[in-house]
């Protein structure tokens, strides 16, 4: 009744809100398409490559590689992403290294993904039974061949659900890029609210768009899992 009254009392209000919701949808989607999604994809790919090397370094018997990998993972996991982004963007120029907003964000996000995902990949590699390594060696493969042809494909299957988690986390973390001048999805929402002060409406709209993106990613995750199933030794 309360709501009905409010709309009757001020019918223009509802029209206003609908038109704000409508007109703000495109700028936010644009923020998502031009920044949120590309930032996530690029950072994730770079981060994943970094993660594979870090995981292998952690598993290798070469001591120095092992130590470097440990320090990297420890520093990145032990400090907030927001702080890392601020150091890269606002701090490094004091050392004479000025990086533009988008590359700064990509560096920050890739380093973050690299550290977290390396632990996932390391766990996945360890989870493949020793017998698989021995099988590889017994037919004359060396370390690299066994890793590439037998171990990694199986490890990939194991690591898909946790890596998808990382990716979905990354999509949402890109909202931090707004603090280093990248006008991604959430920044668009903030900028629109800054002039019309409709916080609830626009923040909900932004949340809804993030949610749709992440739901689509979950669907993709399901497909990938099915596809990788065929590599698994049963």
């Amino acid at each position, binding site marked *: 009744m309360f709501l009905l009254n409010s709309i009757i*009392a001020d019918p223009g209000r509802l029209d206003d809100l609908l038109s704000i919701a409508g007109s703000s949808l495109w700028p936010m989607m644009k923020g998502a398409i031009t920044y949120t999604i590309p930032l996530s994809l690029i950072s994730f790919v770079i981060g994943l490559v970094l993660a594979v090397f870090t995981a292998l370094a952690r598993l290798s018997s070469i001591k120095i590689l092992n130590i470097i990998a440990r320090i990297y993972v420890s520093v990145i996991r032990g400090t907030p992403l927001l702080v890392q982004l601020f150091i890269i963007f606002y701090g490094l120029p004091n050392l004479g290294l000025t990086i533009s907003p988008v590359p700064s964000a990509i560096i920050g996000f890739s380093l973050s993904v690299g550290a977290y995902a390396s632990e996932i990949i390391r766990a996945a590699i360890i989870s493949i039974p020793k017998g698989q390594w021995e099988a590889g060696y017994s037919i004359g493969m060396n370390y690299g061949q066994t890793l590439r042809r037998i171990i990694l494909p199986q490890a990939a299957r194991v690591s898909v659900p946790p890596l998808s988690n990382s990716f979905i986390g990354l999509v949402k973390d890109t909202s931090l890029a707004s603090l280093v001048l990248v006008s991604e999805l959430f920044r668009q929402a903030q900028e629109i609210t800054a002039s019309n002060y409709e916080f609830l409406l626009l923040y909900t709209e932004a949340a809804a768009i993030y949610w749709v993106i992440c739901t689509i990613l979950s669907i993709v995750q399901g497909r990938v899992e099915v596809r990788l199933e065929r590599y698994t030794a049963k």
Partner: protein
Amino acid sequence: MKKLLSILSLLIVSAIVLSACGNKDESKGNQSSKKEDELYNKVKKEGILKIGTEGTYAPFTFHDKSGNLTGFDVEIAEEVAKRLGVKPKFMETQWDGMFAGLDAKRFDMVANEVTIDKDREKKYDFSDPYIQSGRVLIVNKENKDIKKFEDLKGKKSAETLGSDHFKIAKSYGSDVQSVEGFAQAAELVNQKRVAAAVNDKISFLEYTKKHPNASLKVVAEADNPAKMGLQFRKGNDKLVEEVNKALKDMHKDGTYKKISNKWFGEDVSPK
């Protein structure tokens, strides 16, 4: 996909519905005087005036060396609370968070050198203006292309999100990068990542006092100075009235002048 879309629209519709409700609450306050007194009575009863502020905007609202919140706006707000017979409780957040906080009833008032402008007056109530300051165009000392506001066209500038400086820069066709506050804007001009920043004259002077090595200079000042007021949700006329009374008394008995002199070395009250 279809299901997803329908849930999505449901979510947005419920936000619209809730927003519609939210405003209703306030607009009703405009009509009935009983509602008007409610917030004032609540503040009096609890003995606490909740004040939203940034805490990062010297010399208006910032933390001194020992970490205490202080500044011109903070002292004015403290004095207002004292005269209302209540305790001030400062709650610090970012500039755009302040407005959201006021909307969400987390604070009763915002004290943060908020410029009174037409757009804001549509949504909020303001006290009588309690400060007036120029708006200046700040560029890097090495910059030679920007000499007046018109030169901002197509140039990058850094402005606080939702500030009226943001609107000014945009109105001159600048490619505005939104930042969280003046400190970040100054840093970006310093690092030459943006060409300029429009900001408040007083806060610029304060910044250069604290950062004498900063490579910043003022090249122009806007004709119309900005007037700032304490900011309230609509529909709390009684509270605004009492605050205005307190501000007037402060002017009369010289308290205002004392605070103004302490922070700026001059009287900054609106002419």
